[in-house]
Structure formats: C-alpha cells, structure tokens
C-alpha cells in the first residue's frame, strides 16, 4: 500500500488534533471575514527557494524594489517581539538563543560581519585577514589583525587593540565560565606592535579560526575600561553592556522589554532608527497576534506553522530564509545494548538507505511546512561550502523494500520484517512538546510501516534528552535507534568535525563530554576532517569539505529532513531588512529605516 501513490496522506488523522494555531483560526472564524481588500503581491520573502542548492545568495528580494534612501526615512522607534528572553547580553556568557543573538547584533559590532552574499566583510577590522593580504601566515599559525582607526565604544571611550587582548583574557579565564570558547582556546600568544594591530600566534594551524572567533554575533569585544575593574561579566556587564554596534543599551526590564537607542559613536555613521524596543512575549501566538495588529513592528523567530496566518496580511512582509539549522534524524551507529558494538540493524548502509528512501520528505515539506523550504541534503546545504553535486535520495518505497530484502530482512507474519529471529523494530526519540516534530514523527512512523519497519516512539523534554552522562542523559546513553532534532553548524564555518569525527563520540566512561551521541565513526571521514582543519588555503579547504560531504552522503549518515527557516514578519513600513543564512537577520540594523 503505497501511500504516496494513492494520495492518502498518512497523517490525515492528525487533522483532529487541535493545535494552538487552530484555536487562533477558530477564534478568527468567530469574527467577520478579514478585510483582505488587496493582499500585497509584495508580501515578501517569497524568494525562489528552488535556487537554494545552486546559489549562495539566498537573501529575500522582498524589499529590493530599489529601496531608495528616503530623506524621510530617518528616525523613529520600532518594537520587536521576542518570545524568549536573553540570558546575558554578551556573546561569551549567554545562552545563544535566537533572541539573544538579535539583541547582541544591535549592540556589538563584530570584528567581521557577514554580508548579504554570505561573504565576510570588515566590521571593526580594517580588512578580512587572508593569506593573500598577509593577514594569515602561509602555515596558518600567525594571524595579524588591524583595527579601523578612531573607533569608539558607545560611551565615547576609544577602542584599541588592548580591548582585543583583554577580550581574549576574559574569554579563556575559567572564572568567566564562558559558554563560547571555540577557537579562543587555540591562541598561544598575542603581540601588539601598535595600538591598532595584534599578531596572534596559534598553538597549531586551525583553519576555522577567523570564522569562529571574529565573525557574526560572537565577534564582539569586551571594553577593558569597564571590565578591567573585575566586575562580573555575566551579571553586571551582561545586564547592561557597553558595545560598538549601531545601537547602545538603554534598559532591560526583566520579563518586559530591552530598549536600545542609536549609538552616536557607531563607526559606520549613526543608525537611521532612533531606537529599538525588544518586547519579551513568552507566547509565540501572542507575538503573532501583536504583529498582525500592528502593535509591534517585527516578530522574530517564528515557526513554519505560523506562515499561513501571516502570509496574506496587508501591510505585513514575511521573510523566510533557510538558515544553517537543519532538522534531521540521527541513526544510532552503536548497539543500544552495548555501545562498544556496532548497531545490529543500522550499521548496514543498505538499511539506512532503505529508511531514507521509504520516507517522502518532499511531501512532509509540502504539507507540514507549507512548501516554504526544501528537503535537506546535509548541514552545509545553505552555505557557500555546499557540494552541489549532491541531491537528496529520492522517495522510492519499492527500492527501499528491495534494499531491505537484499539486506536479509524479510516480511514476517504481521508485515514487519525479520532477520535471524529479530524484528525490524526501531525506537525513535525526539523532544517532547514540539508539535511539529511530534506530527512528523507519526508521519514517518506510517511511511516506515509501509515498507515493513516498525517504529516505536518515546519522547523526552530537552532537559532530560540532552542531560549529561551523570544525570542519565537519554541521548548520551545511546539507548535509542533513531533520534530527531536540529543542529546548527558552529557559527559560519564549515568545520563539521563536531558531528562526524570519531573523537567526538560520547562514551560515558572515557569521553563523557563528546558531542556525537549517535556515534558515527569512519576513518576516511576522520582523515578528511583533520586535514581540512589544517588546510589554510580557502580553495583547497573548500575542496576537502566537498569531499567529506560526498563520503558522508554515500554512507547515508543521517536522515536529512529540511532546512529550518529563519522567519520574520515585519511591518512593510520597516525597510532595509536583508536576512542571510549565515549572518541572520539582525546583522545590518543600522541600515533599517521606516518609510513614510
């Protein structure tokens, strides 16, 4: 019974489930039909996602009607709805939520920022360090950076290279208990020949260094003149920071709002808007109601399920950008009963391939995600490092069955396949309470049943799922067969060692802090990943990254579902927003303006 062919949707029964969105719809239905007099064709973000695989420029063209610089576009206050409250307004000590990154980018100009085409451009630095311009030594161990002259902190104090040296000291200081150390711990020494230049020596060649320590929302500096007195970076500075961004901090009322206003010392010239008020509204539905109502000008970090109710609203522009967060199901490569052995079912690549081919991922994207994104190939699919010769495995239940037959799994009396007395039954875990994930789980369960695979379901709250080894973390202990959640590459660098190299495999006895609870291990992949980290030449490194992707793809390393969307709904009066997969949506808030 081929589900896709008969057109019967295996999740038809889910229609009976009432989500909050349905409640809102119902509430809407109680009113008189909306005055959809003219829905704006300009409702933005309807970018051609088909191009995603080929093109690196995935910025929506919504506001690209040659947005003229209006003289009337100066000034004004906008309010932004956030459904999460930031934890601390410094990149080094915060929780790295989407909400936090948004506020951080208005307050802290990074050393380098990610421009509209996913390319690095100078931020506080004079230029992007490369081998050609001498910023990176040929062996990759010495990086020279030079600050722009006459930079100032938002309180008017001059910014010098001493602040960079100080930032390094603070980040690696155990007392700071930094949440973001990546790359900073590779620094062996820093010399400062003059007050704008730093010569950074690394302990070993580390190709991702510039990407992971200088760019995007984690590339800001700490002011030595403020923090030099030893005040606590999280609680004191993190609640009232001084930065270098287009806006400066005004106030943070816990649970209510964070206000920032134009920083007159911003080195690109003052921002066009006067101030931005980030309103904290813990319920995404409330955020949506307020942006529809015009009570707030921008709603950030929305879900795919909210697209339909937002896309046809007059005066509202919807931006949907596939980001670097990719929803996937991991295969457990180790035996849940004994993690030192390979998985009795899933270590066979034919079974993994059959599972992927049994799932109509396009159908899932088209229905559950309203066709707004596309089926993922791997975690680099939206980045310039993507190996674009790769395509998702097709949906082909017949071939899936053939592969399972070939692997020795034959249907038993109840239709579920068996081999050597073992039923082909797999346990799937995901985060409890995420409606979309839970719906998708049921859909996949049905697809797998159609090819003779039984899938059982057990979900856990994030605090249980990702708990450490000491707290009996579900993922870390590996007592599962398939696990679904999203991962994001760390920053804007294509180094995927964290996910796929053997030394990251979690072992509660020997390597409790490893990252890969799925236990993937492949000597060829290890070799290539080690090599790319040492390869300084960007072209050669990109080539190795493409090779790794090929090897992992052939090995069917995961069930890649889709590229998660970065969704913004903004008042159409608010212009200048240019979301990019790498740089996010808030990288250029200084250029945002209100049209009249």
């Amino acid at each position, binding site marked *: 019974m081929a589900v896709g062919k008969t057109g019967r949707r295996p999740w038809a029964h889910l229609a009976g489930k009432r989500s*909050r969105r349905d*409640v809102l719809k119902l*509430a*809407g239905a*109680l*009113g*008189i039909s*909306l005055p959809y007099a003219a829905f704006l064709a300009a409702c933005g973000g309807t970018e051609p996602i088909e191009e995603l695989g080929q093109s690196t420029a995935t910025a929506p063209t919504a506001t690209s009607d040659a947005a003229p610089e209006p003289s009337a576009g100066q000034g004004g*206050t906008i*309010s932004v709805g956030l459904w999460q*409250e930031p*934890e*601390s307004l410094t990149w080094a*000590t915060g*929780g*790295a939520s989407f909400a936090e990154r948004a506020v951080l980018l208005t307050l802290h100009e990074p050393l380098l920022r990610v421009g509209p085409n996913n390319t690095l451009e100078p931020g506080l630095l004079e230029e992007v360090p490369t081998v050609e311009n001498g910023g990176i030594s040929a062996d990759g161990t010495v990086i020279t950076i030079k600050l722009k002259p006459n930079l100032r902190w938002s309180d008017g104090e001059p910014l010098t290279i001493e602040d960079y040296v100080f930032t390094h000291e603070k980040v690696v200081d*155990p*007392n700071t208990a*930094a*949440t*973001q*150390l*990546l790359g900073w*711990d590779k620094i062996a020494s820093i010399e400062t020949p003059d007050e704008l230049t730093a010569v950074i020596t690394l302990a070993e060649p580390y190709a991702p260094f510039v990407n992971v320590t200088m760019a995007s929302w984690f590339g800001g500096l700490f002011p030595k003149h403020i923090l030099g007195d030893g005040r*606590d970076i*999280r*609680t004191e500075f993190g*609640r009232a920071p001084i930065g270098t961004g287009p806006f400066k901090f005004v106030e943070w*009322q*816990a*649970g*209510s*709002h964070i206000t920032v206003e134009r920083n007159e010392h911003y080195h690109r010239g003052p921002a066009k808007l006067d101030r931005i*008020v980030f*309103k*904290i*509204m*813990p*319920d995404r*539905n*409330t955020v949506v*109601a*307020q942006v529809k*109502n015009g*009570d707030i000008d921008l709603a950030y970090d929305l879900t795919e399920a909210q697209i339909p109710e937002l896309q046809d609203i007059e005066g509202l522009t919807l931006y949907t950008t596939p980001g670097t967060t990719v929803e996937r199901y991991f295969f457990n490569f180790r035996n849940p009963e004994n993690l030192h052995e390979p998985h009795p079912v899933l270590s066979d690549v034919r079974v993994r391939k059959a599972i992927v081919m049994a799932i109509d991922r396009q159908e899932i994207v088209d229905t559950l995600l309203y066709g707004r994104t596309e089926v993922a190939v791997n975690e680099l699919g939206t980045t310039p490092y993507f190996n674009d010769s790769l395509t998702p495995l097709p949906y082909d239940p017949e071939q899936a069955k053939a592969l399972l037959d070939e692997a020795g799994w034959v249907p038993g009396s109840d239709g579920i396949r068996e081999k050597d007395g073992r039923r082909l039954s797999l346990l799937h875990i995901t985060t409890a309470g995420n409606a979309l994930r839970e719906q998708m789980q049921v859909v996949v369960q049905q697809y797998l049943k159609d090819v003779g695979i039984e899938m059982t379901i057990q979900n856990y*709250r*994030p*605090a*249980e799922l*990702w*708990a*450490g080894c000491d*707290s009996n*973390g579900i993922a*870390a202990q590996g007592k599962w067969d398939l696990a679904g959640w999203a991962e994001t590459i*760390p920053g804007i660098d294509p180094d995927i060692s*964290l*996910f796929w190299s053997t030394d990251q495999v979690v072992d509660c006895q020997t390597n409790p*802090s490893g*990252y890969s609870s799925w236990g993937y291990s492949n000597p060829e992949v290890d070799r290539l990943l080690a090599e790319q980290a040492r390869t300084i030449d960007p072209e050669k490194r990109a080539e190795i990254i493409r090779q790794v992707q090929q090897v992992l793809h052939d090995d069917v390393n995961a069930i890649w579902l889709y590229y998660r969307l970065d969704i913004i709904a903004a008042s159409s009066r608010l212009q200048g927003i240019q979301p990019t997969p790498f740089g996010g949506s808030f990288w250029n808030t200084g250029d945002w303006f209100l049209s009249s």
Partner: protein
Amino acid sequence: MVRYIVRRLLQSIPLLIGITIVAFALIHVSGDPMAVYNNNPRMSPEAKAAIAAKYGFDKPLYMQYFVWVSRVIQGDFGYSFSTFEPVSKMIGERLPNSLILMGAAFCITLLVAIPFGIYSAVKQYSWGDHLITGLAFVAFALPTFWLGLLAIMLFSVKFKQWGLPNLPAGGMYDVSVGKTFGQVAQHLILPASVLGLVSAATYIRHLRASLLEVISQDYVRTARAKGLSERKVIYRHAIKNAMIPVVTLAMMDIPWLFAGALITEQVFAWPGMGRLFWEHAVKVDYPVLMGILVIVSSLVVLCNLLADILYAVLDPRIRFA
C-alpha cells in the same frame, strides 16, 4: 488560642523542610541544568567543566541540597543558573507584577461571584439561575490559554480591525508611554478579566451550594417565621454562615496571589511570578524554582492556619483546643 497557633507554627517547620526536600529531588529528576550546554556546538568540554564547577553541579546531590539550605537559612536564595542574577532580585522584580494581576483578578472574582452566587441560590431553578450555573460550568471547563487567546483575538485584533476601541494584546505597559497607572490599568483588563471570570465560576458554585444548605436550616426558618423580610433573612442571617466555605476558598487562593498565574501570564506576556517559574522550570534552574516554592509553600501553610482561625471568628461553635 495562642497555644494552638504556636503549635501549628512549630508543626509547619518539619512540613516545610519536607516540602523542600521533595521539591529539590523532583526538580533534579526532571532534568539536568547542563543539558542546555550539552546541545551547544560551541561549548568546549573545558568550558562545560568550568561552569559545572562554578555552580556546584559537580557535587553530589545531597551536598547541593545542604549548600542551598544553609544559604536559605541565612536569607540568601542564591543565583539563577541561567541569568546569573540573585534570585531574590528576580523574585522582587516579578512579585509586585503578579500581585497587581492576581489582586485585580481576585477583586473581579469576588465582585462577580458574590452577587451572582447569592442570586443563583435565592432564585434557585429560575431562568437566571440556570443561565448562571450554565455559564459557570462553561467557564469552569474552558482552558485559560484558550480563553486568553480568544480574548486577544476579539478585543485587541478584531476590534482594532473593525475600528472599535480596543485593548492591548499583551505586556504590562506601552514602553513608549511608560509605566503609568493608566497604561497598567489598560493592559490589566484582559488578563485580569480572564483569570477573574474563570475563578468566579468556582466561587459561584460554592456560594450557591452553601447558601442553599443554610437557607434550609431551622434558624433561617425561625427568622422567616418571626416575620423578617426575605432581604433581612438572607443578608443578616444566612449569608454569614454561607460564607464559611467561600472564605476557606479565598484564603487558599491567597498564596496564588504571590505565585502568579502560569498560563495567563504566558499568554498575555505579563512579567509575573508564574512566567518566572515556567521559564526557569524548562531550564532546571533550581535556585529560582526553589526560591519561588519556598515562598509559596510557606504562604500555603500560613494561609491554612489563617483560614482555620477565621473559621472560629465566623462560626462561634468552633473552638480550638
């Protein structure tokens, strides 16, 4: 009486200690505060170890409990693991907001419940009684988040589209105007009404049942027999006794004035205690959770005692030994 109160207060100490032990254990069963870092690809193992050491997660659980208790006895609720602020400061910021919301809701509850409850009992089985009890059942059965979203949809979104005067959808005040009395009052209307009306349903049912029981008693019949007007019978004689269960209910609701309303605060973006609890429960941030639990459970114990004392005031038949 004084002996009774002292005895009850002393009894409550082991009770509170028991509550904290159970709560502490339950919070730890619910997850790992480090989980948020374990899923962060930019966290190195050294960074995780530094955080665990700084906040004492590397110590055994009973040690973590003793450290927490010895601090609380000295009046220090510790620091949040996620915002790193003092818990007392965080609670101090949220508590007044919850008191405003819950206090307003409580007033609405009483203002609605007392007249309607009395009417419902006095005119039992009348058309009005059926309407009131029917509506009370509906309100009782409705989930508050649903009612809240419905209210937002109607009174702020639709009313605005229809060009009618409308209410703000969430928050405590308009940041551009500031935290003025008028602003807070305006933002208070929807959440306080939703909360107040839902809990009025419970009060109406209790008051109606209790008043009906009292009305059928001998002393009320006596009052009627001696020729008092129905008005005097109800308001002077029946009401006082009928209020006893309602007073219990109200006393038991007082701790919730401090605890806030989890769901309603969430839906209406009201920065109160309920939201504080929920946001930090997700992160297994136990200093914050325990701080709130200690305050609320102490209030529950205290209000139980107050309710018992009030019984004696309202009902002279009750004596404490």
